[in-house]
């Protein structure tokens, strides 16, 4: 149990997918202007990434490795993720309309969120077993959501601050993200290795 706890803390705080590993920055800059879109995006990523982590692990083990097709990994994974996103969207629309209304517009964006493909590839690279893969995917996605929501909270204040004209928008967003990354960097000592 403590192994999983350590893994979660490490993925959420120490090696935060967004601020320490630079994955998923495009949606990070794009959907963080308002708190509710940030929440929606964060939840959609947690949902899809946990599923994608489980499914790509199964595909890797039972299809790619079993038939010696590992060189197709990139193509197969991106297709699996794209199909999964589409499927989740259709299923939600039918079965859970309120959730669909909340997350719907963010789902198509997730296919090209590099955090999703990135974490699926990392699962394989670290040679995790099934349970570890699922926990790691979930924790990484939670870290993404946490950073996104915190960032949106800061960014909402931009609207009432005076900002130099040339720094408006993405430029200041990046500098702010840098300062947040510095704060998260402070957790480095918590987990060794």
């Amino acid at each position, binding site marked *: 149990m403590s192994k999983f706890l350590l893994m979660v803390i490490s993925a959420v705080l120490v090696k935060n997918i967004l601020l320490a590993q630079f994955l998923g920055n*495009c949606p990070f*800059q794009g959907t963080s202007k308002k708190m509710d879109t940030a929440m929606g995006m964060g939840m959609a990523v947690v949902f899809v990434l946990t599923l994608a982590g489980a499914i790509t692990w199964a595909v890797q083990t039972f299809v790619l490795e079993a038939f010696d097709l590992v060189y197709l990994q990139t193509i197969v994974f991106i297709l699996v993720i*794209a199909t999964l996103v589409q499927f989740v969207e259709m299923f939600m629309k039918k079965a859970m309309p309120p959730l669909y209304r909340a997350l719907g517009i963010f789902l198509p964006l997730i*296919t*090209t969120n590099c955090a999703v493909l990135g974490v699926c590839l990392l699962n394989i690279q670290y040679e995790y077993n099934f349970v570890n893969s699922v926990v790691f995917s979930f924790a990484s996605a939670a870290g993404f959501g946490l950073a996104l929501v915190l960032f949106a909270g800061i960014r909402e204040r931009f609207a009432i601050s005076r900002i130099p*004209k*040339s720094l408006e928008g993405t*430029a200041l967003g990046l*500098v702010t993200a*840098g300062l947040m990354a510095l704060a998260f960097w402070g957790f480095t000592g918590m987990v060794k290795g």
Partner: protein
Amino acid sequence: MRFFQELTKGFWKEIPPFRLVLGLCPALAVSDLCSKAIGMGLAVTFVLVCSNVLISAMRNVIPPKVRIAMFIIIVATFVVIVEMVTHAFVYPLYQQLGIFIPLIVVNCIPLGRAEAFANKNGVMLSFADGLGLGLGYTIALFVLAAIREVLAVGTIYGYQVMASSFKPFLFAKEAPGAFVFLGILLGLMNLASSKK
């Protein structure tokens, strides 16, 4: 004439990742050393040129409803080619770039250009567009990497440029530095073009 316009717009007017805010993740992740930045830039250029040419050649055959899926497969195919070639011939670079080579698929520049440009324009123009934006991206990565490498290690592309008494500024090498320097560079670019 149009050919050169499409080619040169990638160098300043629409230079990614500054003007075209796409491909931020690799720009942040591989810009701590110049050698990595150039390797990444050239890999993206290759994928972009090939996918642009192929997609624009096939633009009348691809059914509009499944075009995104087709684009992803085409881009992914070229990314796998890059992955295999770097694995076979430049193994140190392959190890340094690591996960960011397969992630070119979702880096949005090839996919974005496919949707916004190659799908609507002829083969020659798409070639120019891909080459221009790809080289622009390489230049942008190199500039960012040069700044970070000088401050963090005191070298550019491995050559010593700072005096030996120079104290390395480690902040530039780590993750927070990547964000801050990219942001400042973007701000400076905005400032420069607003003066004109």
